[in-house]
């Protein structure tokens, strides 16, 4: 059943990808309106899939890398649609939709983990920790995508060479506002994720911080974002510098998410998450 919903989700996101890319190339309003609708349909199927999975296992399905990708993808699409509704930067869909489609495909290809999850990692606070972190990732991922657009557009205006992207990308100020908006939402969420995780660690293991590889990398990313936000508010770092920092910060986050989960060891890795039966 969940599998069926996931295929519907995949179809929705791929459909939305085609529509948004179509919009990007021919710049017709209708395409992006339908892109948002199809993506919304995909999100609905995605939601049902997640509910079904949660129902059947009894907790938020984040015990394998694939499942976590799905949850992250859901937050990404939800945050994007929210953003698109309140503060539309339409071309962003041309990056978010393919990314969402790829993440669902990845989740479907990756092996489904079998086994039971340690009761230590099942509680309400673990769910809070994971949800906050993933929502933070989603907002910061949008800042990352916006940063790429910013760098492309800024480069064209500075170099005075106007190519394919110049007309299709929004103004620098819009892209910079996007950076700020995503940062001011994503950073508190990430902070909340870290704090809730460390409180829970204190509660269960008796220590706030255990220098697990994932924790170290996340701290690094958090510091990058903290510096960016601080400098933005005090001396007005913006534009190119803000875009680069948002990109760097997110790349570090990707390392924590993918790297710490697949290659590094520590209690955050998905390999340790499941107790082999």
């Amino acid at each position: 059943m969940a599998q069926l919903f996931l295929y519907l989700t995949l179809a929705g996101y791929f459909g939305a990808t085609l529509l948004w890319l179509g919009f990007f190339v021919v710049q017709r309003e209708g395409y992006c309106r339908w892109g948002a609708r199809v993506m919304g349909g995909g999100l609905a199927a995605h939601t049902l899939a997640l509910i079904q999975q949660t129902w059947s296992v009894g907790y938020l399905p984040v015990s394998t890398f694939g499942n976590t990708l799905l949850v992250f993808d859901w937050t990404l699409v939800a945050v994007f649609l929210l953003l698109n509704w309140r503060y539309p930067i339409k071309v962003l869909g041309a990056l978010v939709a393919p990314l969402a489609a790829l993440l669902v495909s990845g989740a479907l290809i990756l092996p489904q983990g079998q086994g039971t999850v340690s009761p230590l990692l099942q509680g309400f606070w673990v769910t809070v920790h994971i949800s906050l972190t993933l929502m933070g990732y989603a907002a910061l991922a949008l800042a990352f995508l916006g940063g790429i657009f910013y760098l492309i557009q800024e480069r064209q205006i500075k170099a005075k060479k106007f190519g394919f992207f110049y007309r299709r990308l929004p103004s620098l100020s819009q892209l910079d506002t996007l950076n700020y908006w995503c940062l001011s939402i994503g950073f508190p969420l990430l902070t909340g994720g870290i704090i809730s995780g460390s409180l829970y660690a204190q509660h269960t293991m008796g220590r706030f911080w255990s220098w697990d590889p994932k924790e170290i990398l996340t701290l690094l990313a958090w510091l990058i974002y903290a510096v960016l936000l601080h400098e933005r508010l005090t001396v007005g770092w913006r534009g190119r510098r803000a875009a680069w920092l948002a990109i760097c910060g997110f790349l570090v986050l990707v390392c924590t998410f993918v790297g710490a989960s697949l290659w590094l060891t520590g209690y955050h890795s998905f390999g340790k998450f499941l107790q082999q039966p």
Partner: protein
Amino acid sequence: MNLLLFGVNHKTAALSLREKLASLIPDLGQTYQSLKAWPELSEVLLYTTCNRVELLGVTEEPEAADVRVRAFFAGHPEITAAALEESFYLRRDQEAVQHLFRVAASLDSMVVGEPQILGQMKAAYRAATEHGATGPILNRLLHKAFSVAKRVRYETGIGDHAVSVSYAAVTLSRKIFGELSGKNVLLLGAGEMAELALEHLRGQGVARITVANRTLSRGVRLAARFQGEAVSLEELEPQLLVADILISSTGADHYLLTRDQVKAVMRRRKQRPLFLIDIAVPRDLDPAINDLDNVYLYNIDDLEEVAEQGLQHRRQEAAKAERMVAAETLKFQDWLATLEAFPTIIALKDKAEAICQAELKKTLSQLGPVTPEQRQALEVLTSSITQKLLHHPIIYLKRNHHLKRPHRELNLVRRLFNLDPDDIDNNSEKN
């Protein structure tokens, strides 16, 4: 029925000739009165812009109408017949339709893709309808022209790129700042191009305009024109703290702003973006300023390059637009052709009906008394035979396969069914 389009435009006639021709139409009401009085033209539309004077008419006698219109335009005392002959063009039927569509879609303009022409044509058409000068054919043609122009604007990028230096400055500002409302503009010096750019920026709703000039009185005058404020050139740095867009066009022989000055200003501005437009020759602003983050410096050469790129882009898009115009012209031509077929179709039906009635009368008189049912059956029989017989010829006429020579086809049908018994010889001679 023929469509004729006469006129001169910027390609065929010098401005002085266009002005003289336009002066022949001092008052539209009066002009339309006299045009409507001509028996040769059943519908007429006049439109003049700074680049063209054109007259579009529907006529049954193209030769006579041609003579009339030429005489009308030669009416100006200072226009010689030779000058008129040289620059006047006459387009007929399909060419006239295509020409009109091209004009409305701004493909025939001096600056391809400029949006004003459509508004001017709409106004001219409104005036013509108010004076009752247009009829069913021109009404349909003009509405079609407006919709073609709209499609061209939306479906091609013909109007997307700035093609003038002053407007290029505005589009760049919009790519940097997004909305320009709430932005402050600082003008250094004065000059035609700078003022034009300022005019455009004001059209985009900028918040405040400040003019800094070496001679304060000139600055005050200029500021008054744009409802702005005048300051002296010494206040440049403090003014830069609040400005977002700076247009510089002074006659200074040294840089008014150096990289280090702007760098210091940017720090105090908390890096809010700054767009500097240097249209002075020699340059007022140090080119190295462009290396600073969040500062965008464009000089006159850069802007001209942007405008040139825009022009090239418009030319490419114009090719697409030409294809759309050509397709729409053919469609309109189809409609006109069906219009031409209608009299023939009616004549055909009338003739069939007449034959039915005559034959019915003859037969009934021979049959003697019949019941009303029998009589009705006979009527149904005859009419259904003729209807079935005529069905395909009528469909054929409506579709009008022979687009290039519709008259020949119509004439063939008319001769085949002998619809014009009087001039049957005439027709055979013509074809």
